């Protein structure tokens, strides 16, 4: 039987990818950020799963305004890094797991979540920066990846509640897959940031840290926070944080925190990071 063994949350700021790709991780600006992932990289090396279900948002790379799916799951056998306007990131091709993806898709749709099925797409920094943060710069990624793209760009995104419930449906789906696979689920994006208007540069460390606390201890209550609060307190792009609730919904009610990290800034953004395991 397949099982979800751990959850990871991390921001996916494009400048982090650029720092890695351009060998700038040791500069005074970036060193404190990458230091915050060192323990997680060691943990990950000892707990590398077979598959990662990677919840992220596409940033107008695979999806233009022609088609905007709320939840889109990748069922392909591979995904190429996207050209976001400055050429694709020099990172390995992302290998999929089409069999598990098909099973999860069928199971989740039968649990009343109407996923959009994607058989071909490129993946942008939203997906590849988290892989780089946790795995560094290998020749090939050590895991297969099932991308789950969530619309958080065109308002309204799905509610926190819906995301949390989708996570629960994904857990049931994974646990009903016959093959013995170790699966992690990652939730990415956030934390507080705003990339437009007079309020650009907004950071709300107090709100972010309360979000980290509640994601661990009170995800049920956190899932009822309305969009308006995210927009007002965490900025117009901070609403990406609803994606973390999908990850959390796929874990047990009680979790153990293996790592927690918070850092300001990465470019315009507050960076948050959690590694969670189901509590024994």
């Amino acid at each position, binding site marked *: 039987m397949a099982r979800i063994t751990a959850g990871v949350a991390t921001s996916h700021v494009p*400048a982090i990818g650029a720092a890695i790709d351009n060998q700038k991780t040791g500069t005074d600006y970036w060193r404190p950020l990458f230091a915050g992932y060192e323990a997680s990289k060691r943990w990950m090396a000892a707990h590398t799963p077979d598959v990662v279900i990677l919840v992220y948002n596409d*940033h*107008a790379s695979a999806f233009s305004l022609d088609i905007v799916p709320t939840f889109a799951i990748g069922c392909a056998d591979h995904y190429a890094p996207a050209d976001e306007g400055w050429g694709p990131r020099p990172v390995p091709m992302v290998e999929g797991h089409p069999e598990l993806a098909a099973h999860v898709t069928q199971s989740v749709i039968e649990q009343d979540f109407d996923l959009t099925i994607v058989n071909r797409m490129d993946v942008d920094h939203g997906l590849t920066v988290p892989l780089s943060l946790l795995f560094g710069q290998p020749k090939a990624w050590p895991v297969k990846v099932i991308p789950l793209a969530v619309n958080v760009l065109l*308002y309204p995104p799905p509610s926190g509640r819906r995301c949390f419930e989708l996570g629960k449906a994904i857990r049931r789906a994974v646990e009903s897959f016959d093959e013995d696979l170790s699966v992690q689920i990652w939730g990415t994006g956030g934390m507080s940031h705003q990339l437009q*208007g*007079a309020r*650009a540069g*907004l950071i709300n460390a107090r709100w972010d840290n309360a979000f980290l606390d509640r994601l661990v201890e009170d995800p049920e209550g956190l899932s009822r926070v309305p969009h308006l609060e995210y927009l007002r307190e965490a900025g117009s792009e901070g609403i990406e944080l609803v994606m973390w609730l999908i990850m959390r919904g796929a874990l047990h009610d009680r979790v153990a925190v293996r790592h927690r990290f918070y850092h300001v800034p990465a*470019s315009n953004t507050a960076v948050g990071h959690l590694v969670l395991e189901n509590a024994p």
Partner: protein
Amino acid sequence: MKKPYAEIPGTTVFDLDQARKGYHLNQFCMSLMKAENRERFKADEAAYLEEWPMTPEQRLGVITRDYNRLISVGGNIFFLAKLFSTDGKSVQQAVSGMTGMTQEQYAHMMSNGGRSPLAG
């Protein structure tokens, strides 16, 4: 429709009404993901823009790289990112220009914890 999020100061939420206004503007930006389109655009911006049924204000916003104007006429930052990437500018360079601060002042604010939510 009631839009309580429209009252957040200094913030334009990219909702379906904004997306409808900005459809061609954002799709133009999307076209800059292809290297050959970036080259054609850089060679003659006005001619390239003629290929897109955008409003005069949207065209002016592109030509002058006035990102606050482009947001107000339906642009979304992740689509506009294709435009400032074509110019070789980072997100922080483009975003700082919307705040009335110099890039240096903005970077300094970010390194000191960012803009306080209480400052509005």
